[in-house]
């Protein structure tokens, strides 16, 4: 049995008279120590999927169907107390913007120690030592001094390191990282990413990595999911998908990478933009933007098909031309 199993998850936002559906049945699973990437355009529902795992959706969002199983337990059936013992303890989260995730009026130390004390029966002194050890793991210089600092005294990269340290404090089995490097300077993105990867590997922590960066996904993860308009359109082993994408949307994403294009040439792009939640086209949601769409695509919704190691939700997989990268891939 997988460590985390998400089955046919559906999320909706009741807004006044109409109800917006943000996820239409998303399923995936994660084994111990495994790393899963979730990619997709803005608005595809990646964050919604991540937050619904820990049941932290912003109101009025709610899980309308499906289940999330962690170590075999259905999380929706847990009491508030039991759920709290999973949040931050067994499953941690890292948010996108480190400028906003740390509370501006509390010291780093307070914010670390409170997390430990919420889940462990330990003294202040032990908690402090553990916190300092974690700060050292994420390579923060003079961690003892940093314990008394406020978030505004640290740079963005440092703050994200602190957030990572907090996520790792309780030795969780899974970390969910929602675009952990998007808000950072490009020069430190790679540094933070490799730090995260190292720490996950050494502590055997599972990682769900949400990102826009396909290069990062291919370097860090073993499995990946491509999302479009609240559905999974392709999933499987990362290398397989990157080298041989089946769904036209995934192909578009990969072709749009700068390194796929010759220097000086116009960058490829997928025409059009993602539909809003109240205007998702009938049939395959991608059909208005797809170069290969036909009548059938505008009527019937394709299901994920193919071997578990690489599935795509497209009825025309077999008839699509062979995928060829434009430029040389590194």
């Amino acid at each position: 049995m997988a460590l985390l199993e998400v089955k046919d998850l559906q999320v909706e936002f009741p807004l006044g008279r109409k109800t917006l559906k943000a996820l239409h049945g998303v399923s995936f699973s994660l084994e111990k120590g495994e790393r899963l990437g979730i990619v997709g355009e803005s608005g595809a529902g990646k964050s919604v999927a991540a937050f619904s795992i820990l049941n932290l959706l912003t109101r009025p969002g709610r899980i309308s169907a499906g289940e999330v199983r962690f170590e075999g337990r259905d999380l929706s059936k847990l009491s508030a107390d039991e759920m709290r013992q999973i949040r931050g303890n067994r499953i941690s989260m890292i948010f996108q913007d480190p400028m906003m995730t740390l509370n501006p009026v509390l010291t780093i130390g307070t914010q670390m120690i409170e997390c430990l004390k919420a889940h462990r029966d330990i003294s202040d002194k032990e908690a402090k030592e553990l916190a300092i050890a974690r700060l050292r793991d994420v390579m923060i210089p003079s961690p003892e001094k940093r314990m008394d600092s406020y978030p505004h005294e640290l740079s963005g990269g440092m703050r994200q390191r602190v957030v990572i340290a907090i996520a790792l404090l309780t030795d969780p089995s899974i970390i969910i990282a929602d675009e952990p490097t998007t808000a950072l300077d490009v020069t430190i993105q790679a540094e933070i990413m490799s730090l995260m990867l190292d720490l996950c590997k050494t502590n055997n922590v599972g990682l769900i990595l949400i990102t826009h960066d396909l290069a990062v996904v291919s370097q860090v993860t073993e499995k990946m999911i491509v999302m479009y308009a609240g559905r999974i359109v392709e999933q499987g082993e990362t290398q397989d998908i990157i080298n041989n994408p089946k769904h036209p949307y995934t192909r578009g994403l990969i072709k749009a990478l700068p390194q796929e294009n010759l220097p000086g040439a116009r960058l490829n792009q997928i025409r059009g933009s993602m539909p809003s939640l109240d205007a998702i086209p009938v049939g395959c949601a991608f059909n208005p933007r797809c170069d290969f769409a036909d009548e059938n695509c505008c009527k019937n919704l394709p299901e994920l098909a193919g071997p578990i190691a690489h599935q795509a939700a497209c009825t025309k997989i077999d008839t699509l031309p062979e995928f060829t990268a434009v430029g040389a891939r590194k």
Partner: protein
Amino acid sequence: MMPLFIRLIRSEMMEILQMDYVRFAWAKGLNPARVYFLHAFKNTLLPVVTVGGVQVGTMLAYTILTESVFQWPGMGFLFLEAVNRVDTPLIIAYIIVVGLIFVVTNTIVDLIYTWVNPTVKLVGQKS
């Protein structure tokens, strides 16, 4: 003054409960009391302290009104009498005392500020 504070705290709280750091506090698995009273409430104190300082001043000014309406013998009433009698020394004394109270409350507000908001540092204070 109470209703004003309650409304202010309420609207601030609504806003702050949407912030990422409150969501992060939930994600850390803290108990609700700690999230509400420490993480969220401490952030609402900032505007409350600011408004509170100004309110003390307003309250002082309105004593003149309340005291003359209800014929209470107080500082405001005394001041009004003094104006009627053109008792200049008393008027001056009153203004000095009120001015002093203003200065003192505002200094206290500034001091509280550094406590609730760590980004504010008074000059000369060691970080």
